[in-house]
């Protein structure tokens, strides 16, 4: 019979609350250090998934974020049960994340300018989009519209939440309706796609930004492998589901490493936010007062009241058609 010593052996040389193994390079990383590098591996620059609150902390001017509608809570409209009842899954996710649903929205400042933002938390049921998620995205958009401040959505989501059935599917229409109005009002909308952005989230607001940014090597795709192989019996080839793939095919503007993300967004907003009346900017008259084409000049001459004329009117027409 083996003698039992009163000391327990060190079962784990790397306690998980202190150390994280990088799935990219296998290096053991000290969590405190990892937090300082914005949870990006200093060796291989693997971007770890981060919580919504950590993301907000990294993006906004320190202490400027005011959360709104934190009390919106999902319900179980279908009485859904798979291996576990949906309310149990919700409860577990709520306890794990301290959130009521998969997004946090509110208003914070970036570079001193207020921004309406909605940030996904992948740790809440895979960041899936249910009714509350859609509602928060819509409210963030409506606040941006009402206050004419930019809209920022940071997605990290597997797509629509199956447990709420077609209600989740309808969130595509709900969010796109609002986003379409935001864009029509020429309120800037920047979409950031973090790992992963797939399914119904990718196929709605995430892909629809004025500018679409993505984190390096983030999974960005429409259909998951299980759906692909189940429907058409083929899986996507290697490399068909990344931010880099989407950049090469024209659906992402820029891939931005996390340490540069905040600055990049501030720079972009500097371009997209129209200067208020007090500020002076050389008028864009040189561009708009000139008829845009011979045809426009002609229609302008023939039909004096027509929209085809230049003179500032042209800019408006252009703004509207580009949304179509």
């Amino acid at each position, binding site marked *: 019979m083996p003698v039992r010593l009163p000391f327990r052996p060190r079962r784990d040389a790397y306690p998980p609350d202190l150390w994280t193994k990088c799935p990219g390079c296998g290096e053991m990383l000290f969590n405190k250090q990892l937090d300082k590098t914005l949870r990006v591996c200093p060796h291989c620059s693997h971007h770890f998934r981060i919580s919504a609150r950590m993301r907000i902390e990294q993006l906004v001017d320190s202490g400027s974020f005011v959360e709104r509608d934190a009390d919106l809570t999902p319900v179980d409209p279908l009485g859904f049960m798979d291996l576990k009842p949906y309310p149990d899954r919700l409860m577990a996710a709520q306890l794990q994340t301290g959130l009521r649903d998969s997004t946090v929205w509110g208003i914070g400042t970036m570079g001193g300018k207020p921004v309406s933002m909605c940030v996904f938390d992948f740790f809440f049921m895979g960041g899936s989009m249910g009714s509350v998620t859609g509602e928060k995205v819509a409210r963030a958009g409506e606040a941006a519209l009402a206050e004419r401040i930019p809209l920022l959505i940071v997605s990290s989501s597997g797509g629509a939440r199956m447990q709420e059935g077609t209600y989740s599917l309808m969130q595509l229409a709900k969010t796109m309706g609002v986003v379409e109005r935001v864009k029509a009002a020429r309120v800037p909308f920047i979409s950031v796609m973090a790992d992963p952005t797939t399914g119904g989230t990718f196929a709605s607001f995430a892909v629809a930004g004025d500018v679409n940014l993505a984190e390096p090597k983030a999974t960005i795709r429409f259909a998951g492998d299980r759906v692909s192989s189940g*429907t058409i019996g083929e899986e996507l080839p290697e490399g068909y589901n990344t931010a880099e793939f989407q950049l090469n095919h024209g659906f992402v503007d820029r891939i931005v490493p996390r340490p540069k993300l905040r600055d990049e967004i501030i720079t972009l907003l500097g371009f997209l936010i129209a200067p208020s009346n007090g500020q002076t900017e050389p008028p864009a008259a040189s561009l708009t007062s000139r008829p845009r084409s011979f045809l426009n000049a002609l229609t302008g001459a023939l039909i004096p009241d027509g929209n085809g004329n230049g003179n500032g009117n042209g800019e408006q027409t252009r703004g509207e058609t580009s949304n179509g």
Partner: protein
Amino acid sequence: MVDRLLSRVHGEPHPVDPVDAVWAHVQQARNLKRPHTLELIKFMADDFVELHGDRLCADDTAIVGGLARIGGRRVMVIGFQKGQDTEENIRRNFGLPHPEGYRKAMRLMDMAERYAMPLLTFVDVQGAFPGAASEERGIAEAIARSVAVMTRLRTPIVVVITGEGGSGGAIALAVGDVVAALENSIYSVISPEGCAAILWRSGEQSHMAAMAMKVTAGEQQELGIVDIVIPEPGEGAHTDPAETARRIKEVVMERFDVLGRLPLDDLVEARFKKFRDIGPYIVADRPAAPPPHPGITDRLRGLLSNMPSLPSMSGTRHDVPPGREEV
């Protein structure tokens, strides 16, 4: 499920197992012989001119559309087209559209708006084509934009779900002022097979998934997603396509009459609002779920380290259980 068990306990013979009934419904919705867009329009329209191509690179045969005259009214018709036999199915890519299909649809929607024609869409799709070709050309972008265009299109839109309303591929053409569905059709956020593969981790539970997601037209009407359920003749739409088309036509024409009387601004606003308000939630009065109780090491570390806590978010350090991600 519970009913089934209870009936066993009480010894009452249950006439039809509800799971089987739902699955029979799914099979009915997928019946190859069901009339699709072109078959229905043949019976409904006095005249129909099909238009092709997205004006960008191709013509998708899984989505068809064109100009129709129905009961004296000019209507833009867009719909999914599955094949009725293997040969046609191969030609139509088994009714799974590529981005070109949705881009063609958007082109026709735009045309409907400009020429003041109401829009009628027929939805019968398992989902958008989920393969490499589709991904390369931006299926997500095409779906997102098609949804966006429909939320603001300045003409009446009636949607009829005729078979499978599957996922993002379906909603891309299903944002309507009125959403009607044939009795035996289904509408779901993901195919039952896909749902079972992800949540049950086994494709064999698709019957259960179909039941859990409440996919049938009747259930969808109870949930408020579908406005009108159109009864099918006889044993189902495939047994009498002409009568099915007549019933659809009756409902659609009546709706167009009602919608046509609304000012366009009100119509678009009402459509936006209809979808803006879908999705139940509650506003909780209890405080937010507390952050997980910190372990002894966390508390010790908190005591020992003189790291300044961040002003408004000090409680959030424990949001992510460290080390548990990426497993």
